[in-house]
């Protein structure tokens, strides 16, 4: 392929009223080409020329680069009322020129991508927020209707889907929940031990870990993990279905996507989250025990005894209840963003991102509210 490129040349012989443009050499994408402005300058205002012809005897290989230059030259000449004799060009170029002008640009089709000023952007995001809240309320309303239909036994969905969703967000999530909860228990124990061992009260690490996990951390960590794991998956699944028209197809077949797709996912999470929460509590307590027994001269029996005494059934119930609420919120944000997804690949990415962000924001707000309420009620 080592063919040396010949120099690209475009010169003008002025034989008024005839203008002879000589094109020679190779015109390839990587060639150095002469500046078209110099040629255009020689045309001047075009008043002394009537016709433009080409001499292409010495033209070598050429590609789109030559075409773009010729198109500019021809457009400029026609603007100056100079007749361009394209018949003097090689037939391949003539054909391509004909093809380019075969479908003229439709009027009004061209548009510019406009830069939105920053003040307008802030305003827009405010308006978006309002739309978002409206959409959320409508979504919650629809979901409530389908849950009501479910309890009246009238919801149309496949039990197999519910079962698969439970499998997906329950047992399959255990490894990651195990790892994170163990480590959180471990960290709680270490952090608590720094202060408690000052008073020789290492035994009370059991209280700290037990209460901390069962009331707060077990549920919260489970929720954060499930938001990233399952909430994102829901948004991506439903979003891709939206892109592929699958949701439209379900609607035309007489299924309510809310019942058929969203309901089994929400139910699965509501069912699974409390169980995962209990499991996470247990793992956290084991993590705490590992630290306390190994580093702080507390026997395993003492630790467990202390734990059993410190955790009341009420503490566990609060944690489990919170986690069930988180489950609803995760399913809600995941499914909502998925159903709102646009029609392109990047929209699926946006839906997934905002599902996780929305989910975590909801979780943290709900957690704060519930903690304050529990505190006020003295639970």
């Amino acid at each position, binding site marked *: 392929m080592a063919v040396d490129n010949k120099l690209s040349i475009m010169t003008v012989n002025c034989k008024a009223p005839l203008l002879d443009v000589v094109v020679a050499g190779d015109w390839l*994408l*990587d060639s150095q080409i002469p500046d078209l402005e110099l040629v255009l300058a020689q045309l001047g205002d075009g008043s002394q020329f009537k016709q433009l012809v080409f001499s292409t005897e010495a033209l070598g290989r050429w*590609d*789109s*680069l030559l*075409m*773009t230059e010729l*198109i*500019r030259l021809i457009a400029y000449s026609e603007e100056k009322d100079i007749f361009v004799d394209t018949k003097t060009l090689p*037939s*391949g*170029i003539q*054909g*391509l020129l004909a*093809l*380019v*002008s*075969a*479908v*003229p*640009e*439709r009027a009004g*089709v*061209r*548009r*510019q*991508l406009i830069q939105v000023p920053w003040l307008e952007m802030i305003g827009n995001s405010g308006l978006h927020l309002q739309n978002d809240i409206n959409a959320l309320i409508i979504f919650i309303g629809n979901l409530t209707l389908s849950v009501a239909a479910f309890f009246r036994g009238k919801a149309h969905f496949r039990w197999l889907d519910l079962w698969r969703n439970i499998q997906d967000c329950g047992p399959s999530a255990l490894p990651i929940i195990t790892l994170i909860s163990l480590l959180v228990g471990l960290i709680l124990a270490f952090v608590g031990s720094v202060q408690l061992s000052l008073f020789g009260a290492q035994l009370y690490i059991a209280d700290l870990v037990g209460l901390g996990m069962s009331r707060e951390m077990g549920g919260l960590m489970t929720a954060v993990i499930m938001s990233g794991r399952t909430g994102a998956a829901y948004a991506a699944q439903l979003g891709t279905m939206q892109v592929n028209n699958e949701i439209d197809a379900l609607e035309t077949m007489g299924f309510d996507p809310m019942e058929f797709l969203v309901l089994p996912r929400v139910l699965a999470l509501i069912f699974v989250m409390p169980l995962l929460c209990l499991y996470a509590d247990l793992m956290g307590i084991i993590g705490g025990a590992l630290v306390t027994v190994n580093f702080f001269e507390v026997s395993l029996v003492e630790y467990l005894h202390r734990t059993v005494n410190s955790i009341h059934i009420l503490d566990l119930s609060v944690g489990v209840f919170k986690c069930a609420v988180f489950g609803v919120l995760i399913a809600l944000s995941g499914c909502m963003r998925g159903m709102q997804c*646009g*029609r*392109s*690949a*990047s*929209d699926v990415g946006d839906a997934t991102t905002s599902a996780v962000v929305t989910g975590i924001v909801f979780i943290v707000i709900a957690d704060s509210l519930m903690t304050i309420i529990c505190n006020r009620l003295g639970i």
Partner: protein
Amino acid sequence: MSSPCLSIKNMTMAYGDFIIQRDLDFTINRGDIFVIMGASGCGKSTLLMHLIGLHRPISGDVFYGDESLWQADYKTRQRLLRRTGVLFQSGALLSSMTLAENVALPLTEHTRLGAQRIRQLVSYKLALVGLAGFEDYYPAELSGGMQKRAGLARAMALDPEILFFDEPSAGLDPVSAKLLDDLIRSLRDHLGATIVIVTHELASIFAIGTYSVFLDMDSKTMIASGPPKQLLAESRDPKVLRFLTRGASENSNFSAIKASGA
């Protein structure tokens, strides 16, 4: 005009243990509009994947000119594939980019042209496929036929020697399909490119195909090759004839149709 451009030597394709097609052996000449045809599921698109370097054959090879595609190292393969352009079935435009950005992508990556020059080239390519003025549209805002033509503009961005088309007229109305066929033929005529088309559209096959191979699903190999019209007139193979006559050759008036078709 009949120097070999792409040759397939004894190629066998498989997914895992499942053989798709075996012992494929044919040559695509420069300037051909080469049609790969066969029933749905016979491995036409898989063959295309092997030709454009996305799938490695389990035996045999593909030669670009006289350079092997699959014996070559990664860099050589990339260099060979720079000479090709591919139009995928659904256009495969990147949905987060405008048409102009889509077409400009290979130009900015593989050439050192300035932004101004690239913009001119992009406008030219889009005008060539009849999409003048649509530079700043996103693919989702266009119809299926327009997306396909924009995909063609992107495939042509680097002035490839070989253009591959996967089912170009699938999902288009007859008029748009005919226009696309005309476009493909005039691009071949004016650019001097070689065209390889995977299709089962009979109208396109007879309208623009200059040479073809027929892949068979049961025997898992090619059972006929030649110019499509000649295959229709001369082939003795019932499977080929059934395909080329839309199943009509099974009827008793088989010879009448054959005579009118030829």
